[in-house]
């Protein structure tokens, strides 16, 4: 399942999450973000939610979180573990490449 993260729920849904979380920072006007949308959606369907939570954060509507984590380019993908950023990927990529990176992170 794909989650939606906002300035309001970020603390509880991401930073205090028991499982690692992948956050896709995106905006509707960003082409590469839109191309990545189906990739993230598919990964959210394929990866066990008990191992990795996957969701999106619209930077236009949630400037607080984007600012807090210094997101200055989209798409940016941050992986959180225990409230800390453990991995950062910037830019579009193929689904398998994203999967491989995530496999390494979640083990």
């Amino acid at each position, binding site marked *: 399942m794909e989650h939606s993260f906002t300035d309001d729920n970020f603390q509880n849904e991401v930073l205090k999450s028991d499982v690692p979380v992948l956050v896709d920072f995106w905006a509707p006007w960003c*082409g*590469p973000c839109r*191309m990545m949308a189906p990739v993230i959606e598919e990964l959210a369907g394929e990866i066990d939610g008990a191992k990795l939570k996957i969701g999106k954060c619209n930077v236009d509507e949630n400037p607080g979180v984007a600012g807090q984590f210094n997101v200055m380019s989209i798409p940016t993908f941050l992986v959180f573990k225990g409230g800390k950023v453990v991995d950062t990927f910037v*830019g579009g990529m193929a689904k398998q490449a994203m999967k491989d990176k995530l496999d390494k992170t979640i083990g």
Partner: protein
Amino acid sequence: METRDVIIIGSGPAGWTAAIYAARADLKPVLFEGPEPGGQLTTTTEVENFPGFPKGILGPELMANMREQAKRFETEIISDKVTAVDFSSSLLKVMVGDTVYESKTVIVSTGATARRLGLDSEKALYGKGVSACATCDGFFFKNKNVIIVGGGDSAMEEANFLTRFAAKVYLVHRRDAFRASKVMQERTFANPKIEVIWNTAVEDILGTEVGHVTGVKLKDTVSGVVREMAIDGVFAAIGHEPNTALFKGILDLDEKGYIKTVPGSTRTNVPGVFAAGDVQDAKYRQAISAAGTGCMAALEAEKFLAESAG
């Protein structure tokens, strides 16, 4: 192993058009989307010169439409990046890691990628003030100062776009004249938020120690004088490089690295391998010309298959 009729590498206008034609010819094409799904048009905004869209269409939307159309005719889409090819036998091989795909024909439409400045600091600060996509990232530079490097149409276009957000856009160019079209130059000179810095090159991007761009080191290309300038963002529009690393030593490339095709066709030096779009076109580099050569490649692949079937 299943032998395919057509494998298409790349998902820009050339790749999708080839897929649509090949699929409608019942060749059951397989298309590898690659590292930048949708290609260069995904980093643009409005496309105003693609026929059939009198009001213009957003680049990403145009690409999503092409994908949809190729899918409708049952193109097999693989969201992965080809890591190697072997064209040494008539059974052409395309590899993704350890997985090998075999095909009778291959259409190469891997496109071109925006050239970077090539600085270590640029790499280190990518996504932290250094951006490869003005339309994606302009938003993060509201009321900030940015520089854009370049002197062609895309540099002018991006400079003008960035003024929607930035307080000031410095357009840095290494010579004393632009090669951009007259209309784009006029638009640039008329924009009060853009300041042109002539005869200047970016020597280094500053800020690696704090983790975001704080400034640039500029060098006057005439006097050689080096100075530092505080800046929040760095964009570059300094041309493109064809994505042909996979094909070095396998396909004939020209001195700039573009795939050579037989004039008037999309044939490469390897029978059964065709090239379409920007990867073989340093001259026109348009979505519509890429789509045109994608169509040609599919028709030529179809003919090749018919002839080799005897």
